[in-house]
């Protein structure tokens, strides 16, 4: 056991701190779904890219720094600690890109990855459909293969970043005869293609960002298929596990939420609320340490049991509990938005509260995580399908 960062790691952290302090945007950027906001975000992404900080964990060949898991963690911690803007291309950086990296050909890596880093392409994920939320295997969007072209028809929903995205990595059904997760293919779709319609869909905290995406006879080159045709479920598994997994500074953001709660509790909380703060601090610590342990696992290439479902479920529950408690400490002031956008969208703690409740649903609802934990970790029998 050694809980200390190496001198090199500490130096990397200071380097980042200096750069973020000097170059990070002052104040909050406008929403990326507004014209000025999108420019501001692209400008920030450009600065990161030019400094080499767009994706430290990616290989040098495709524009990353080849940083190891610990340096990636340090980057994520500092990025969160400086409260820098949410990454415009996070679906590409965290999910789509690593999937291409893991399953794509060299040609595909060269073709797709640089565009994510320099934000020429903005990626979104196309898994959920109106009839396929928790049950991803029920996907009905079809990909009809016709020589070297796939013709896509169907609909995706709850697509984060959908209204600004140029590129979707999607699961489509290429074998209509196959049931469930068989016959699905993982494919990258250019949303600028004819036949794509994107309709904005709001989120309940008032913030835009969701979209429904409709496909009608959309032609996609077969060279955009990642992995084998019909093997999409396994390919997508990489992305799903990444989505469940921790990292990306979630532990730092949770700690920040706890610090904010602690300040308000110190100012106006009852003794019982101090006790509740202590309870939440303890679970926040546990989550932080689980993140470090997972980083150690990745860094050493060892593969202990996959605890990403445990982390996802409990992270979202702790996150919600911290914010529920913050509402309680604020009392009658809780509903009053001190910080909100021109259209009434929520910012700060109140946005995070609702967003956190959404997180108990998305990326595999916590009910699905409980199935995974009880079936894969404990070996209990699967639920019978209807």
């Amino acid at each position: 056991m050694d809980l200390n960062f190496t001198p090199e790691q500490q130096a990397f952290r200071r380097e980042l701190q200096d750069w973020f302090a000097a170059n990070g945007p002052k104040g909050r950027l406008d929403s990326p779904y507004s014209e000025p906001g999108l420019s501001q975000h692209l400008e920030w992404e450009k600065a990161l890219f030019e400094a080499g900080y767009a994706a430290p964990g990616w290989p040098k060949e495709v524009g990353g720094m080849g940083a190891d898991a610990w340096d990636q963690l340090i980057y994520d911690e500092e990025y969160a600690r400086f409260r820098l803007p949410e990454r415009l291309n996070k679906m590409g950086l965290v999910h789509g890109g690593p999937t291409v990296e893991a399953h794509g050909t060299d040609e595909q890596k060269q073709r797709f990855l640089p565009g994510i880093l320099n934000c020429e392409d903005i990626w979104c994920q196309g898994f959920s459909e109106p009839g396929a939320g928790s049950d991803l295997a029920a996907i009905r969007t079809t990909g009809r293969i016709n020589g070297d072209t796939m013709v896509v028809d169907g609909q995706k929903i709850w697509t984060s970043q959908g209204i600004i995205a140029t590129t979707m990595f999607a699961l489509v059904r290429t074998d209509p005869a196959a049931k469930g997760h068989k016959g699905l293919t993982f494919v990258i779709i250019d949303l600028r293609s004819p036949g794509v319609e994107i309709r904005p869909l709001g989120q309940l905290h008032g913030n835009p960002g969701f979209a429904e995406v409709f496909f009608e006879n959309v032609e996609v080159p077969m060279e955009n298929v990642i992995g084998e045709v019909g093997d999409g479920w396994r390919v997508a598994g990489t992305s799903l596990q990444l989505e469940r997994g921790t990292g990306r500074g979630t532990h730092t953001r949770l700690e920040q939420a706890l610090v904010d709660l602690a300040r308000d509790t110190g100012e106006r909380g009852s003794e019982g609320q101090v006790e509740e703060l202590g309870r939440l601090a303890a679970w926040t610590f546990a989550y932080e340490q689980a993140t470090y342990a997972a980083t150690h696992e990745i860094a050493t290439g060892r593969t202990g049991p996959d605890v990403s479902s445990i982390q996802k479920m409990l992270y979202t529950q702790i996150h919600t509990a911290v914010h529920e408690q913050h509402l309680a400490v604020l009392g009658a002031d809780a509903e009053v938005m001190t910080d909100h956008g021109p259209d009434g969208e929520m910012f700060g703690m109140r946005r995070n509260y609702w967003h956190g409740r959404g997180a108990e649903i998305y990326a595999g609802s916590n009910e699905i995580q409980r199935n995974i934990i009880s079936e894969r970790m404990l070996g209990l029998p699967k639920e019978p399908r209807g």
Partner: protein
Amino acid sequence: MKIAFEPEQQDLATSFDQAVAAEVDVEALRALWTTETGRSEKLRATIAQLGLTTILVPEEFEGYGGTLVDLALVLERMGYHAVPDALVESLVTAPVALTVAGSPEQQAAWLPRLADGSATATVALRGLASVPDAHVSDVLIFRDGDELKLVETSACELTPLRSMDPSRRQFAVTLPEGAAQVLPGGGVETVLAHEAAASASVLIGLSRRMLDETVAYAKVREQFGRVIGSFQAVKHQLADAVAKVELAAFAVHAAAAKVADGAPDALTAALAARIVAVEAEFEANRASLQLHGGIGFTWEHHLQLWLKRGKALEQAHGGLTELTAALGRATIDSAKATA
């Protein structure tokens, strides 16, 4: 003992349902979000026509001279329909405050007007930083230490606030020097008890609506080849929430009766009722969003009407910390007394 509402009390709730049906249609409620007052004149007129504004006004002031029991079921329906107005204040705590604590002049000036709907009152028992519906109220009754005071809103400065619930209209109120009159009769405890019990009724209705919506959705939404309502993961979350709401409802109805009777344990019963109603609502709120899944998280879905009202009302009439500390202390005192 008779643990049941009278037929007239049940009928009043049914009449309310029918009379306001068009006004509480979810699209109509959403349309109000962007109007200047956020309030429907028609709805307010209907409430007055139904006589709801008269119920807690004594007969000598042209009221019905009723009790909270007469209003309890209507308040539930108001929660069920997510009626946006601050009705706990205007229908319950304002007339009660004037009745128990107002001077004869104050009573004569305001109670008949509250009864016939020509004036509206709002109430603030926990400071003036966030007062509901001050913009459509003629008079504000507020707590100042152990006293209740009254001020005309036209004399106050109202700063509009933005609530997480786009239906709610909250205002920071600044009082001009010396504008407020004391209500000489005390009455803080009686008003607090009415507030807690009435608020609890609203929460029960709100919770039942969230659960009704969710049960209905669980019966049609299919995943994994089955309606999701056939999974124990869904069924048991709903069972837990429904159980809490229904057990809480017994407390809420009893509290209304005790508050109506002025029973010695009226305040503790009302605190208990609001505590269990808040906890039940919390669980109904949690389960209903969780079980709706992604669709419930969209701006376009109506579930947010009840979700956000619920979060606002968990805190608005006294949060759990305040209420549980008070009830806990009262329980200790009573245990010592019976030792």
